[in-house]
């Protein structure tokens, strides 16, 4: 068996983790779709990008979720009972977005461990806008999935580098 045949399917891992979290945490079903046009995605000011770093002996990487602000506002309301238009709910949008990313990354890490790539998580970081933080991505494996959930387009992207040993 070659090293390459042991590589995790990052697209499948991300898709599974994200749909499970949406179902258990928010009771929201999500379907995987290829977005027909990039303009279906929210504009920069309407999108939160939440990122969690993965670190292990054999793997380093990151998990990035892109969540429209109206989706996150609804999530805050579902989780806390606050009215989604209230100032208090508005102030929780980064926190909720980060927590969703934390849970998704946890499930990603559990799946990577089954492939022989155990890793730990950083605390999440959240930014406004759809851009994933730039990094040297040469030699890295990618997996991205677009989901349609609660009337919104969401996405998850996994970026991983494996140690050669």
């Amino acid at each position, binding site marked *: 068996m070659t090293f390459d045949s042991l590589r995790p399917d990052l697209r499948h891992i991300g898709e599974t983790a994200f749909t499970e979290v949406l179902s258990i945490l928010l009771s929201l079903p999500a379907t995987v779709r290829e977005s027909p046009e990039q303009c279906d995605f929210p504009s920069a000011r309407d999108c939160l990008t939440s990122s969690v770093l993965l670190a292990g002996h054999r793997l380093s990487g990151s998990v990035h979720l892109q969540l429209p602000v109206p989706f996150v506002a609804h999530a805050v309301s579902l989780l806390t009972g606050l009215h989604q238009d209230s100032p208090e709910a508005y102030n929780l949008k980064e926190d909720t977005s*980060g*927590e969703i990313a934390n849970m998704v990354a946890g499930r990603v890490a*559990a799946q990577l461990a089954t492939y022989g790539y155990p890793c730990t998580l950083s605390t999440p970081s959240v930014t406004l806008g759809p851009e994933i933080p730039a990094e040297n991505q040469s030699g890295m494996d990618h997996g991205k999935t677009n989901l349609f959930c609660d009337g919104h387009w969401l996405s998850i992207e996994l970026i991983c580098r494996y140690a050669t040993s």
Partner: protein
Amino acid sequence: MTPKILSIDDSKTIRLLLARLFRPFACEWQEAANGEEGLAAATREKPDLIILDHNMPVMDGVTMLRKLRDDPALKRTPVLMLTAEAGPENLALVARLGVRDYVTKPFREEELLAKVGRIIPLIPRANPHP
């Protein structure tokens, strides 16, 4: 006597979710946003149960748990850990730390309530909207 529950999590969303989940039950609810604040609250309040997040800034759950176990007055306090890291290595670590139980995030509310109910009595409030 009404049990005291101390919830320690850096996410205000999770703290609100948990407070809402336990509101129908007769318990005294307290919160802290990290392990450092949690230790101070535990020392002051002597809770009957600590619901402790694993991954937090300032002081994480594992560090806080070790300090709790070093304190003779607090070392027997039952701890239920919440963790998003559901891999076998992390869960084995959590088990070795002597927590009473753990729940992985995201959790089903009935699962968390069942596990808490095995540690402290959860009795519905006479008035569910205090």
